[in-house]
């Protein structure tokens, strides 16, 4: 698998001159390395190669940067706006002493905003296999699967219940957050691969599962979660009480639901916030989000909370709804105070109501956004108590029925867009394996020799570039389709891209040539280079810990801890015997042209 690189004797310098050295590894130890050392890519369900696309954006190759995203997550423009950003929580720049995480998500959007006019991503297409797959549901997950399957050479036909594709992206997310042209463009770039799309065709009603199972080699159900979970309290049927999701679908499909003066939103997710902010745009004067827990426990981003409050929405904590009261229509909600109990094993905290603490919150509109679950449709096979097909296998795509697969929110329950995309792609992988008996895509760790980065230490002190938003509230709330976040200026994006440490660069000291002079440690920006007595390894054989020492006789190696390293390059610059190498290490998918092996 791996070519040996032979260093010219003595003169270490010329090591950096040797022709591009590339090798691939599939050793679990190396995969483990990636999980520890490139935290952002590891955190991304779709394993987006984040350092690479930030670097290319830094080089002002916006289209390429977009492509690097597109390869992994299919919807760069969309996710650049609505992603839940698990990567940023893991960004090394966010470590306490190092400041705030890189604004990875908004850089993604910049790549989309500034790519070449009419830029089209050239797919690598495979010869047709003469096999066909039906996909039910044109949401993020279904579309992602459609993309992968058709590139591999399947004939893909999609059935969508609504009259436009996009699923939650279109019907769950308000326009002020995600402009429709952006969404449409990225959906088209998938459909153009020769995918046939039938809209307005609902499974069960307009299409029958047994027909599909008969007519197609495989069927993938990615119908999402469209059944709202009710509060299950008295009065929920009163006029003026909406289910969050239906409310959003109405809003997004243009039929403005009627909201009154004072709206209460019950729920804690993105949907709750979308409902609240939409309600405001529909004319409510006073909107409150009511939480069972506290702001601390919210799963939405900090910016989201701040924007909501800026718009005048108030967030009320520690209250559990008991009943909705009112004559003729909703007039108020009775809540009871809650108290947090000790933390459970799974890290979640129990919340218990406090006896006798009932109180009333007057209102005229109640939006219940406490979540939704998958919608059942009739199909053979094992199902759970809600009638949902139970996913099988590690990758959770197969069902008990041969040829019938599930993906996306339908399979997992409500999740994020990026998870849905990852899901869809994994399902495609499984289907391809089952139908071709081989895999077309193989994950591998790609290592490429490189020279030292041109990053300057001072870039580490650049402030995180904030996303500009439409300032005057009047203008913002004026119409429902004004995008609140206006996107980075080119300069801001470029500035932000400088902040990335480029964790995909691997710095290593060659123990055979090190003279233990500690020059590197002297110039290190933090305790990233260590005097090591021994290392701990995991079952995969990868290093998981260093035993440091200051006893000279016990210093067996001087090692760079890539989990602490911020890739400033100082060490490699000063090493007297040039024993520090820099390697670009990336988690990639290799395409194998021949079907199986």
């Amino acid at each position, binding site marked *: 698998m791996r070519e040996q690189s032979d260093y010219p004797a003595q003169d270490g310098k010329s090591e950096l001159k040797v022709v591009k050295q590339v090798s691939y590894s599939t050793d679990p130890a190396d995969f483990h390395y990636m999980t520890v050392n490139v935290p952002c890519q590891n955190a991304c369900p779709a394993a987006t190669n984040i350092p690479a696309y930030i670097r290319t954006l830094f080089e002002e190759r916006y289209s390429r940067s977009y492509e690097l995203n597109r390869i992994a997550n299919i919807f760069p423009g969309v996710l650049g706006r609505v992603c839940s950003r698990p990567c940023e929580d893991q960004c090394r720049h966010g470590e306490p002493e190092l400041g705030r995480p890189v604004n990875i998500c908004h850089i993604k959007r910049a790549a989309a905003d500034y790519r070449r006019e009419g830029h089209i991503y050239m797919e690598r297409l495979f010869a047709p296999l003469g096999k066909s797959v039906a996909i039910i549901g044109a949401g993020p997950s279904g579309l992602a699967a459609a993309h992968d399957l058709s590139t591999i050479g399947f004939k893909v036909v999609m059935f969508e219940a609504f009259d436009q594709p996009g699923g939650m992206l279109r019907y769950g997310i308000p326009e002020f957050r995600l402009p429709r042209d952006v969404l449409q463009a990225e959906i088209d770039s998938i459909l153009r691969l020769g995918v046939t799309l039938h809209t307005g065709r609902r499974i069960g009603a307009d299409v029958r599962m047994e027909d599909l199972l008969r007519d197609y080699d495989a069927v993938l159900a990615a119908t999402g979660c469209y059944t709202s979970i009710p509060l299950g309290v008295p009065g929920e049927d009163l006029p003026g009480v909406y289910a969050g999701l239906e409310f959003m679908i109405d809003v997004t499909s243009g039929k403005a639901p009627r909201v009154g003066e004072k709206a209460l939103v019950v729920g804690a997710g993105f949907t709750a916030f979308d409902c609240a902010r939409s309600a405001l745009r529909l004319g409510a004067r006073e909107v409150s989000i009511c939480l069972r827990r506290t702001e601390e426990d919210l799963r939405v981003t900090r910016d989201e909370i701040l924007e909501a409050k800026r718009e005048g929405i108030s967030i009320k904590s520690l209250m559990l709804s008991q009943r909705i009261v009112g004559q003729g229509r909703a007039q108020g909600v009775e809540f009871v105070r809650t108290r947090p109990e000790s933390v459970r094993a799974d890290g979640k905290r129990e919340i218990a109501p406090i006896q006798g603490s009932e109180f009333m919150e007057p209102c005229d509109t109640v939006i219940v956004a406490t979540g939704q679950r998958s919608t059942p449709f009739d199909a053979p096979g094992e199902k759970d108590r809600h009638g949902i097909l139970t996913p099988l296998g590690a990758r959770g795509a197969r069902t008990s029925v041969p040829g019938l697969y599930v993906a996306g929110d339908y399979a997992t329950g409500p999740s994020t867009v990026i998870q849905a995309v990852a899901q869809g792609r994994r399902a495609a992988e499984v289907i391809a394996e089952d139908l071709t008996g081989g895999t077309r895509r193989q994950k591998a760790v790609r290592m490429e020799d490189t020279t030292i980065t041109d990053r300057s230490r001072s870039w580490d002190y650049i402030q995180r570039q904030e996303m500009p938003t439409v300032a005057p509230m009047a203008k913002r709330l004026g119409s429902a389709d004004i995008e609140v976040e206006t996107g980075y200026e080119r300069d801001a994006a470029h500035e932000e891209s400088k902040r990335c440490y480029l964790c995909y660069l691997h710095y290593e000291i060659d123990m055979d040539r090190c003279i233990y002079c500690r020059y590197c440690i002297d110039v290190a920006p933090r305790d990233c280079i260590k005097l090591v007595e021994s290392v701990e390894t995991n079952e995969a054989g990868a290093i998981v810990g260093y035993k440091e020492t200051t006893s000279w006789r016990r210093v067996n*190696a001087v090692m760079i801890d890539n989990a602490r390293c911020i890739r400033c390059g100082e060490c490699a610059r000063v090493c007297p015997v040039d024993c520090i190498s820099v390697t670009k290490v990336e988690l990639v998918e290799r395409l194998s042209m021949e079907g199986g092996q």
Partner: protein
Amino acid sequence: MKTPARELAAKVKSIHDSHIFSVRSDELPTWCPGCGYFGIHFGINNAIQRLELPHHEVMIVSGIGCAGRYPFFSGTYGLHTVHGRSLPVATGVKLANPGLTVLAVGGDGDGLGIGGGHLPHAARRDININYILFDNSIYGLTKGQPSPSSPIGMKTKASPLGTIDKPLNGSLMALSYGATFVARLFAGDPESIADALMEGINHPGFAFFHIYSTCVTFDKQFKTWDNLKSRTHPLPESHDPQDYKQAINEVLADDYSMGVLYHAKPVAQ
């Protein structure tokens, strides 16, 4: 190229299990980070270990200077004497207990400057002392004055216009003083240092090791890592270490050829 994670871990373990560094002391060397002396230290370390010398039968005697601190960082017997007088002390030690392996270490100021007068006599006596000259051509401990081996034109605070005195050539001196083993080596090549030391320590007479090193703190001009790395090179294949004249000629002809210059055939008693 990146070492695969598994290999890397294995590598550290093998070094750990080899105990190769057990001849060091617990003291972290106080030389400036990046100092060439680390390379020399590494070489000496490996030589002692590969010869499997019992550490308690090794004695290191030093003078004053950065190199003079060596005994503190070595897990052997050591003696830090006064400036320039390491060779006389070492002579006493060796005569008192011939069983010991005696290493005398010191810098160029210590050995060619204040102690320069001792070198000829140590060589003449040809007692089995291994004298290792850490030659970085500068006074480091007193913060950068020219040394006897500083090249002409070296600017320091004490020679603002550049030195005008000719530099001494340790190897040539040792050869001309009649040392029976003379090696010239480079701190950046610890492997060769180890090899030469193993040969020299086994040599029954006085052995002189002239090691080119750097002072990263005070010499940014001459004996820098880059200069030494690009200029030094091994002795020609054709070089015969038993040939005294050839050794002299080599030293006269080339300042940067590295290796064992001269190794006299032991005189049959």
